[in-house]
């Protein structure tokens, strides 16, 4: 209830002395907020919500390349696919493929984020110290983040190819070369290497920001009281870094989970089935070989449900930091 509403001269004078209706009051108070968000709401409805509903709908059909609506030579051919209910979900969830890929995606995410965080943390701690050339180190260590992912992938393929620099170096120190790109198990490891390379700088910079936001007085107080370096780390640094760390780990997990470019471009089409994570597999189902839109959509919906779990955790992390909505 706001005073403005009650005094609003433009409000229609109701026949009875009843105050204006709830809707009306709400409108008077919030109309400008709603005006501010209208463009985004319209656009998001059109380009996100509408396709999303379509996607969910497709997952209950048998849509494929053969039976979707298309335009051939200016003539529109209507869609002829049928609704098949939960068939796609039952097929996907009872088959082995989904679970294999699911497990692989989890491994992919956990291993990558573990290394991102650990290496990023170590580098942040080192760079946070008084150090000669600190700014230069920082600037150069950030380069992998700045290189577009598809270019990084090619750079690494060049390094890891059979006669490439890495294998030559291995031979140089008397080790046997590794089939980084030709053996699919190694290929998966190579993809993880590339993604670690790509993701560490973000963690480093974010954690460095967190470290620098810890008030220096806390360390001074700890020092005056004679806390050892370990005690300072354990009781000042760790608690001070908690909120930033949980945020970046969640963001990193989401980004890694969704990573497409590296796996897609590292592998040849034939190899992709053996190293695909869920997003890559869903993509291949829709756009490589016979286009199975329905199956791809089913994967899409399943991926989305997994990511919703991340979203809930993320929301909770934000709430802990005092973000209220």
């Amino acid at each position, binding site marked *: 209830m706001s005073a403005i509403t009650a005094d609003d001269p433009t409000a229609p004078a109701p026949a009875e002395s009843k105050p204006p209706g709830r809707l009306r009051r709400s409108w008077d108070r919030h109309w400008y907020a709603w005006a501010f968000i209208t463009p985004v709401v319209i656009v998001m409805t059109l380009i996100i919500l*509408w*396709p999303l509903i379509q996607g969910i709908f497709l997952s209950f059909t048998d849509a494929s390349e053969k039976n979707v609506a298309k335009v051939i030579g200016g003539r529109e051919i209507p869609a002829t696919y049928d609704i098949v209910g939960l068939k796609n979900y039952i097929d996907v969830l009872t088959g082995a493929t989904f679970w294999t890929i699911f497990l692989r995606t989890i491994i992919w995410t956990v291993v990558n984020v573990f290394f991102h965080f650990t290496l990023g943390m170590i580098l942040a701690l080192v760079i946070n110290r008084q150090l000669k050339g600190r700014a230069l180190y920082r600037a150069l260590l950030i380069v992998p983040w700045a290189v577009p992912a598809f270019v990084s992938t090619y750079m690494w393929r060049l390094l890891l190819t059979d006669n490439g620099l890495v294998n030559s170096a291995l031979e140089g120190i008397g080790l046997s070369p590794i089939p980084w790109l030709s053996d699919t198990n190694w290929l998966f490891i190579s993809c993880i290497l590339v993604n670690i390379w790509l993701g560490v700088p973000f963690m480093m*910079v974010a954690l460095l920001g967190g470290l620098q936001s810890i008030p220096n007085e806390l360390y001074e107080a700890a020092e005056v009281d004679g806390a050892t370096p370990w005690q300072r780390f354990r009781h000042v640094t760790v608690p001070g870094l908690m909120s930033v760390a949980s945020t970046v780990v969640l963001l990193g997990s989401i980004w890694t989970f969704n990573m497409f470019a590296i796996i897609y471009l590292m592998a040849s089409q034939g190899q992709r089935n053996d190293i695909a994570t869920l997003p890559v597999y869903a993509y291949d189902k829709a756009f490589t070989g016979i286009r199975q839109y329905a199956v791809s*959509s089913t994967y899409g919906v399943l991926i989305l449900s997994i990511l919703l779990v991340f979203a809930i955790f*993320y929301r909770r992390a934000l709430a802990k930091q005092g973000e209220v909505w």
Partner: protein
Amino acid sequence: MSTENLTPDVAHEIAVGEASTKKVRRRDERSPAMSFLLHFGLFIALVWSLVPPIWAFLTSLKPNDQAITTELKIISDPSLNNYVHVLTETDLPRWFLNSIIVAFFTMLIGIFLSATAGYAVSRFRFPGHKQLMWSFLITQMFPMAILIVPIYNIFARLGLLNSLGGLVLAYCTTAVPFCAWMLKGYFDTIPIEIDEAGRIDGLSPFGTFWRLVLPLARPGLAVTAFYTFLTAWGEVAYATAFLTSDSKKTLAVGLQTFVGQFKTEWGYLTAAGILVTIPAVIVFLLVQKNLVAGLTAGGTKG
């Protein structure tokens, strides 16, 4: 665990327990050996970070047919021939232009549409606020896998496939919620007193936003814009599925043509890759400091 554990009493006990036995090393002190170890560690990290781009650069200077040889050479017949080739004999300049167009318009639309919404969710509590924040959060992490198929089919019907405009539209599905989310974080850092002062001086909510808050948020706008640009610049999935004709390709798709099934044109590929990377790296280094603050906004406020 929290910093409260360091109340004077507790810390004093620690001090009594430890200080009597040995001298505690201060933060800014370290032995020469430790210094060496730190620099050595950083050196390893530098090698790890920089070898891929440096090696790609060196390879781009070699003759295309000698990029990979059984006998490894750091440099052989250095020349800019690969660069000349990709710039004059391939569609690379066209792809560059396409990438710039797509990334630029994605950025423009993303920022313009979402700035007001970011402001609204930062300042006002209104019915629908919570739902809107949720949808920003969730759509940002939307896998392309859920939207790409329906968007592809809708575009096929509308004739928007294989067009740069269609690609911009597809990129907006992530750019708009992302920008709104980032900008909300920046608006949160601008004190609300400024809005209140504006309102007292008789500005409308729109005037306050346009004349007071937006100018103050300029660094945030710049960083958000830049990051949106880079995301579109490097996007692979939509571009690969949607763009089929050579003249419409963006860099991320075009470069794939250098990778054959049996033979990769490493000289051309690395030259093109370096050309794509240099502008990105330069601008990136300029804004990266503000970028992280925005991405983890909320995380740094606690």
